[in-house]
């Protein structure tokens, strides 16, 4: 097992290197930030001075090497726009996105998996068909539209919840959180629901498909023959048998939501990293883009590794085949 982990970590390093090159070249191709940052009427010598100060006069490969050298010292550069270290900028925005994402993904799993199991357990019941119908809506209705409708309904018409922003935050363990106050939660609720709908639909479908398949197996028949109650069978047999695909999707969704909650964060003016990356693309803030995309790659590599380790816990056969 430890050999397997080492191998995976080496793979991760290669992936990170490849990703940094792709990101660097890609961001370079998008456009020259100096066209946006330097006023058009600035004199030519001032312009050259600024470009040289940011190191943008160097050829691309030299810029990349300088970047690598800095990263090796833990320095991802400074934001052109905010003029503070990029890492600090991203880290300051991360908790907002983190709590939004966790609320959405965990909520989706906590509600979606039981609903999906029910729908798979009783595929012909009216309640199951209703659940499946709603899940199709969750898949097909675009997130931005749902977001706007949520704001319209709960903020504008009913006036129950705030329309956007993060509201007051409490500092716990040196990080700002909204989940520890009622006011903060009220701000979190709508964007979390908005973000969760798609994932909820996906969890329902996954859990249903898995349950339907498992219910037909001899494992379930044998458990019934031993006199186990249906509740015990679902809790102990079915849930563990359908866990592997659900954990996979849970992890990947967690990652992609962390990285790309852009639409929801924009609609609800949620000050997270999604909004940061959109803003930095608009202003061609290269260091932010590069650092952000590389951190996202790191995030996915880490999550994938964790998912693989979770497999070994959930399915002992996996652990054995890897130890061999």
């Amino acid at each position, binding site marked *: 097992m430890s050999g397997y982990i080492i191998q995976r970590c080496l793979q991760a390093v290669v992936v990170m290197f490849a990703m940094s090159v792709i990101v660097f070249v890609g961001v370079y191709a998008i456009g020259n930030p100096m066209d946006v940052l330097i006023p058009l009427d600035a004199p030519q010598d001032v312009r050259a001075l600024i470009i040289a100060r940011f190191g943008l006069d160097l050829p691309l490969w030299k810029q990349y090497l300088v970047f690598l050298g800095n990263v090796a010292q833990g320095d991802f550069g400074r934001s052109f726009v905010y003029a503070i270290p990029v890492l600090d900028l991203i880290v300051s925005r991360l908790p907002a996105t983190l709590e939004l994402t966790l609320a959405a993904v965990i909520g989706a799993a906590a509600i979606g998996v039981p609903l999906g199991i029910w729908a798979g357990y009783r595929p012909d019941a009216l309640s199951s068909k209703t659940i499946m119908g709603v899940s199709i809506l969750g898949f097909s209705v675009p997130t931005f539209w749902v977001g706007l409708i949520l704001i319209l309904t709960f903020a504008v018409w009913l006036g129950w919840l705030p329309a956007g922003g993060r509201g007051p935050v409490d500092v716990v363990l040196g990080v700002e959180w909204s989940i520890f106050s009622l006011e903060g939660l009220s701000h979190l609720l709508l964007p979390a629901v908005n973000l969760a709908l798609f994932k909820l639909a996906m969890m329902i479908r996954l859990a249903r498909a898995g349950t339907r398949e498992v219910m037909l*197996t001899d*494992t379930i028949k044998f458990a019934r*023959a031993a006199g186990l*109650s249906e509740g015990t069978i679902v809790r102990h047999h079915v849930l563990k*048998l359908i866990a592997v695909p659900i954990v996979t999707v849970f992890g990947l969704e967690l990652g992609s939501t962390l990285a790309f909650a852009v639409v929801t964060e924009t609609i609800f003016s949620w000050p997270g990293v999604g909004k940061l990356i959109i803003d930095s693309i608009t202003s061609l803030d290269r260091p932010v883009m590069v650092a952000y995309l590389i951190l996202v790659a790191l995030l996915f590599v880490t999550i994938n590794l964790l998912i693989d380790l979770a497999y070994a816990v959930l399915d*002992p*056969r996996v652990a054995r085949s890897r130890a061999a």
Partner: protein
Amino acid sequence: MSALLLEVRDLRTHFFTRAGVVKAVDGVSFTMERGQVLGLVGESGSGKSVTGFSLLGLVDPPGRIVGGSIRLDGEELVGMPLDELRRLRGRRIAMVFQDPMMTLNPVLTVGAQMTLAIRAHEKVTGVAARERAASVLTRVGIPDAAARLDAYPHEFSGGMRQRVAIAIAMTHSPGLIVADEPTTALDVSIQAQILHEMRELSRESGTALVWISHDLATVSSVAERIMVMYAGRLVEEGPTATVLRDPRHPYTRGLLDSLPATARPGQELRQVPGNTPSLLALPPGCPFAPRCVRASERCVEDPEHRVDAVRAFRCHHPLERAA
């Protein structure tokens, strides 16, 4: 307590498929005494497994028991509320399936699965359940049982896995175990062991066995009585020795002739001509008639159950009794 354990009368289990009604079990009647080992043989699709599942009320939709009666210790099981039936399963009637690889849950430890089976019927602490589980595993011949409780099914060999399944079935010392081809998926050497051990266990605990198999040779070595099933019906039933030595139904004869053990070396095996009929389109009268060398016009009428001294059969043109 009377000697009579199980009384099945005119059991009918039909499957309502889109193509039509499949009469998988169509009027099966038999009785079993306590501790008796009954062999149920037939080709694939003859309805022997469905008969077994019907006994536990475990017929999956679109199938259901449409008629007849199953009495266990005088208690009617057909039409019994699901919850009562559940409390019966595993405690008074249990089942062992063909392939333990498919029946044991691959992601739960053996101990966890046995504990679930124990707790399905008894309120016991986790520690007590583990002790029980270990003692049952020891009984079915698993060495170092207490340590093996934390192992997963894939860490056992095929024979050991089937022993675990048997242990789960035996946990509550049921009066009846339905064993559906329990040795078919195993190596031949292991088959013999399991066969022997199950017979011993049933003898020790007074558990009756319904041994379902397509393999006459296996059944004959374990069962006291034998029932031959064809197209959802019993065609011959009697003491194993009598039926094997001196079959009256042409189908039983055909099955016996197709056994390698009865053929001389180098001789081609005789097989029952034709194929199992589709249960959707059974011929009128005797379903075996189209494949039967003794068939006549009379066979379009349903043959009555006939009995001679020791056994029952269902044929217009039975083979003569050997002298």
